[in-house]
């Protein structure tokens, strides 16, 4: 705060108004974004940092060593963070709950590489037909004017002639572009069918749609096309420029940097989108769709727009995810609920409706899991070497029971505490806890010593899902705004309270 | 909860403040209802009359103030507990259960088994049409019949206080007459607190009144006095 004030005050002293304005915007840019710039810098230098800490090379001859390993892990985490951001766009900012987000993610991988693998002829004719079909569909289904229709048709044909060569086969970039188009198409279908109805229909529809494609991708019937459960191997179809496997020539490092750039672009794009007039309408729709509609906004259109945008980001993330796959296969798991639940989880834990929340949660959780993968967790039979675990558990359970049954117990507690006030009530609760714990200890004392308890050693990777589940329930019940969200609100409330106090001081000297 | 002698008022609402979300709807409403009477809440649209009834029945609990029924504090209790103490609620817009038959609508209002059987004569005496329509789904009834059903439903259990919200709304004049007669008859055994926008109806039915303006109770007294006071009527109720 102090720094900002000093800087702005200094700028105010500049005489020339044009210069002052320029300095102001520059100052604002730096002051508001210095943190993000720092993060990007750290990310950029991350491989070198890891290399220094672990004594490995940034570009070793063979793809081994800490630095090389963490390059791919961080890249994977960044890609999944982008997926989480796209989910947050729908859920946090637009209030749209999608349970089929994995569809867009997996579509990126599958469509790209199926096309690459199977299209071995020129498809310029097909593309032209597709453009004309889209134009025809628009003509029939919407009330688009003739002039716009013609412009679209001409533009489409021109685009096809320019971009789609008359040569056989498809390049990776073309395939990826078509995957994006496919994603847009899926968004349109889902949107048109369900967005006019209650939100719950959209949610159910996305679940059913994603499940259907998942089953189709996994099914042995289409093994030739999709590779079924084993996944679609694409080995040498990946252009060399994008192949992160070789480390000696710096390919992996370069791909890592490309991923960082992608991540930054997605972040900036979403931020730009939210700050734009469209973005503000989106948030208004989330707050109260009815009101937004009565004001005159075509809420359907805006929701559809956000869906398309989020879908495209998810698809591109999917393509990148596949690029980093170690076994060079597109697995049907990409279409499974895992890649819908994970971004949902990251969004919730990080902070619904915050820009950085999902990123923080995604990076933290994914990297954390990788880091702790080989660690073990020992459940000792004695807590801190003092109290046997079971006794500790009895006390904890007693406390939790009393906490949950507060309301039922209140009249009885009141009666015991009488008119003593707050401390009497506290004392009554304490007494109750002692009684319940004592009972538990007595009962336990009969049973437990007969059990031969020893220190249990658990693998962290086994417990990780359980851990996530518990965190999930805690966040949904107690921290609806997620970690970053609660943090933001804390600071904002503090600032508001400070301002209130300042105002009061001004009012009553 | 100390023992009080039988209060003069069967319902006492004292200075309640009720919020809907963050909107401060009631900013201090006081209503005193003597037993056996018909009291009406008057006021312009949006003044807070419906919210007052909802606060009493517990669907919109007040954040401050007190409500006592037969001397027992009821503010803060859950709605079903308040209803079980003997308060019947007839909401506005004739809210009956459309998919349930007339019979089921009445049966669900039973608090003790056999309530409907005992009150059958009384209820069908007031509203003979309902007997004929007993097996029909509520949604098939006309507006007037639905209103009768809504009121009848509040008579099934042993209620000593009825909260009725805008019974005349959307009814043809002939039906309004019938309905007013029914309310007059049942007020012999039950106290009635009415919300009525239609001043003609209100003035003919009620003995006492409370005027609510912008969430505050501003005036109360005997209806007989109010009908004389043209100035008061115009100030708070607009056109009579």
């Amino acid at each position, binding site marked *: 705060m102090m720094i900002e004030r000093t800087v702005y005050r200094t700028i105010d002293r500049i005489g020339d108004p044009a210069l002052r304005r320029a300095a102001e915007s520059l100052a604002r840019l730096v002051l508001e974004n210095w943190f993000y710039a720092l993060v990007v810098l750290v990310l950029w230098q991350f491989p070198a940092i890891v290399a220094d800490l672990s004594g490995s090379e940034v570009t070793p001859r063979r793809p081994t060593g800490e630095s090389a390993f963490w390059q791919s892990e961080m890249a994977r985490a960044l890609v999944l963070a982008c997926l989480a951001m796209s989910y947050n766009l729908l859920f946090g900012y637009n209030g749209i709950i999608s349970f089929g987000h994995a569809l867009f993610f997996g579509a990126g991988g599958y469509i790209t590489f199926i096309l690459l693998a199977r299209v071995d002829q020129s498809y310029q004719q097909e593309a032209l037909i597709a453009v004309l079909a889209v134009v025809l569909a628009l003509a029939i289904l919407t009330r688009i004017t003739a002039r716009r229709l013609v412009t679209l048709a001409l533009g489409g044909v021109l685009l096809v002639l320019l971009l789609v060569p008359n040569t056989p086969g498809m390049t990776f970039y073309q395939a990826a572009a078509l995957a994006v188009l496919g994603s847009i198409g899926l968004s349109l279908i889902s949107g048109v069918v369900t967005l006019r109805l209650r939100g719950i229909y959209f949610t159910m529809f996305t679940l059913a749609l994603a499940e259907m494609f998942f089953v189709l991708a996994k099914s042995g019937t289409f093994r030739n096309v999709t590779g079924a459960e084993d996944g679609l191997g694409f080995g040498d179809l990946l252009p060399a420029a994008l192949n992160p496997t070789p480390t000696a020539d710096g390919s992996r490092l370069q791909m890592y940097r490309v991923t960082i750039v992608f991540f930054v672009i997605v972040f900036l794009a979403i931020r730009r989108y939210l700050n734009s007039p469209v973005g503000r309408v989106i948030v208004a729709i989330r707050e109260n769709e009815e009101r937004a509609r009565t004001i005159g906004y075509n809420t359907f259109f805006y929701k559809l727009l956000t869906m398309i945008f989020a879908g495209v980001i998810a698809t591109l993330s999917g393509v990148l995810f596949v690029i980093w796959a170690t076994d060079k296969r597109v697995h049907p798991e990409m279409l499974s609920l895992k890649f819908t639940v994970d971004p*949902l989880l990251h969004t919730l834990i990080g902070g619904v409706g915050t820009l950085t929340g999902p990123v923080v949660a995604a990076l933290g959780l994914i990297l954390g899991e990788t880091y702790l993968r080989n660690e073990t967790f020992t459940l000792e039979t004695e807590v801190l070497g003092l109290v046997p675990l079971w006794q500790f558990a009895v006390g904890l359970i007693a406390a939790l029971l009393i906490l949950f049954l507060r309301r039922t117990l209140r009249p009885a507690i009141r009666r015991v505490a009488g008119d003593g006030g707050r401390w009497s009530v506290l004392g009554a609760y304490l007494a109750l806890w002692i009684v319940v714990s004592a009972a538990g200890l007595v009962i336990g004392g009969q049973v437990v010593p007969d059990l031969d308890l020893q220190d249990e050693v658990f693998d962290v990777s086994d417990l990780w899902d359980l851990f996530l589940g518990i965190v999930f329930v805690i966040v949904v019940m107690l921290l609806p705004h997620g970690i970053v969200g609660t943090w933001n609100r804390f600071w904002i409330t503090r600032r508001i309270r400070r301002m209130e106090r300042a105002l009061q001081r001004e009012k009553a000297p | 909860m100390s023992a009080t002698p039988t209060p003069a008022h069967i319902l006492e609402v004292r200075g309640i403040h009720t919020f809907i979300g963050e909107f401060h709807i009631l900013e201090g409403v006081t209503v005193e209802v003597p037993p056996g009477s018909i009291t009406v809440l008057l006021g312009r649209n949006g003044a807070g009359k419906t919210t007052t009834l909802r606060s009493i029945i517990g669907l919109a609990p007040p954040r401050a103030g007190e409500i006592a029924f037969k001397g027992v504090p009821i503010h803060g209790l859950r709605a079903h507990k308040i209803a079980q103490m003997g308060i019947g609620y007839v909401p506005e817009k004739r809210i009956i259960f459309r998919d*349930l038959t007339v019979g089921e609508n009445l049966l669900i209002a039973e608090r003790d088994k056999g309530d409907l059987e005992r009150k059958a004569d009384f209820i069908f005496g007031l509203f003979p049409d309902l007997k004929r329509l007993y097996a029909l789904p509520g949604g098939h009834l006309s507006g007037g019949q639905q209103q009768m059903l809504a009121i009848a439903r509040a008579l099934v259990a042993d209620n000593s206080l009825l909260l009725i919200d805008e019974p005349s709304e959307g009814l043809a004049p002939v039906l309004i007459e019938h309905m007013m007669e029914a309310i007059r008859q049942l007020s012999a055994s039950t106290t009635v607190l009415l919300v009525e926008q239609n001043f003609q109806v209100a003035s003919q039915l009620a003995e006492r009144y409370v005027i609510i303006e912008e969430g505050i109770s501003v005036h109360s007294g005997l209806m007989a006095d109010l009908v004389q006071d043209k100035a008061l009527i115009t100030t708070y109720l607009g056109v009579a």
Partner: protein
Amino acid sequence: MQTYWTNLTPQHRRSWLLVVVYVALLLAISWLDFGYNTAGQTVFRGILLGMLVFLVASGLSLIFGLLDVLNFAQGAFLLIGAYVGYDIYQSLDASVEVRFLAAIGGGVLLVAAIGAVMEAGLIRPLYERPIFQIVLTFGLAAIFLDFVERIYGRNPKQPLSPPPLLNEKFTLFQQSLSVYRLFIIGLGLAMMIGVYILLNRTRIGIIIRAGVQDPEMVQALGINVRRVFTLVFILGSALAALGGIALVPYQGATLEMGNQFLILAIVVVVIGGMGSYEGTAVASIVVGLTRAVAEQLSLEHFDAPVLAETSILLLMIAVLLVQPSGLFGRGE
């Protein structure tokens, strides 16, 4: 019967007509394409599936109708019921019949207990935040699935033989089938009728139906709606568990079955109309038949039974476009 027809809205009458026409169409296509016997077998399979889906969907519909919560954990309830039932059936040291009954009882009770705790502890506090309620049921479903996988492993459980009483063979449409299949259909039918009687002939049923329309008014009539909420949730979860256990001697238990039936149940509830009991019943049969016929068609013509998945989705899209509130829904 006559009063039922006259009491229907024109929209619902049209829906009945559509259903009858559609089912007739399905039957006709089956007969013409597969021949009498295969068609019969397919229809039988479809009805069987429909009954099983009904068990999951009725819970979904009731819970949604009354609590306004779409319980995405219904599939997980079926899954838990199946695996626990399997466990009890296989490991208990008693005669077959006792094992069977214990499996049913144990599975249903456990899931009902989970449902009760879930509703009271997790869903009720989130009443003000419906979005989080949905997200919670969805997340819990994933957590439950994880638990089941952790405890029972990934390998699918093979079907166990039903008690000999139910394992008699009979011939239908030239196919030798176990009586157990009839048992499943009978079970589903019994539940259909049972829940119908509950809803229409008991006081609690009147309360539930009234609560679906206006829970606030029910509360104002002096009835503790929250207790009814918990009851309905328990009922819904128990029905799903029952479906799961019934499946064990027929198809065994796999980790995917929860999700499979959840999707089918969702489609049923959308097609039938959210909160409409008869809609759920009718739509269950429709969805079951559609799935069975589609599977047979794709098998015969494309040798790709998996294509039947798309049929369900197409059906859902068709209904959403034509009648958004479902065949017997209440209208938006």
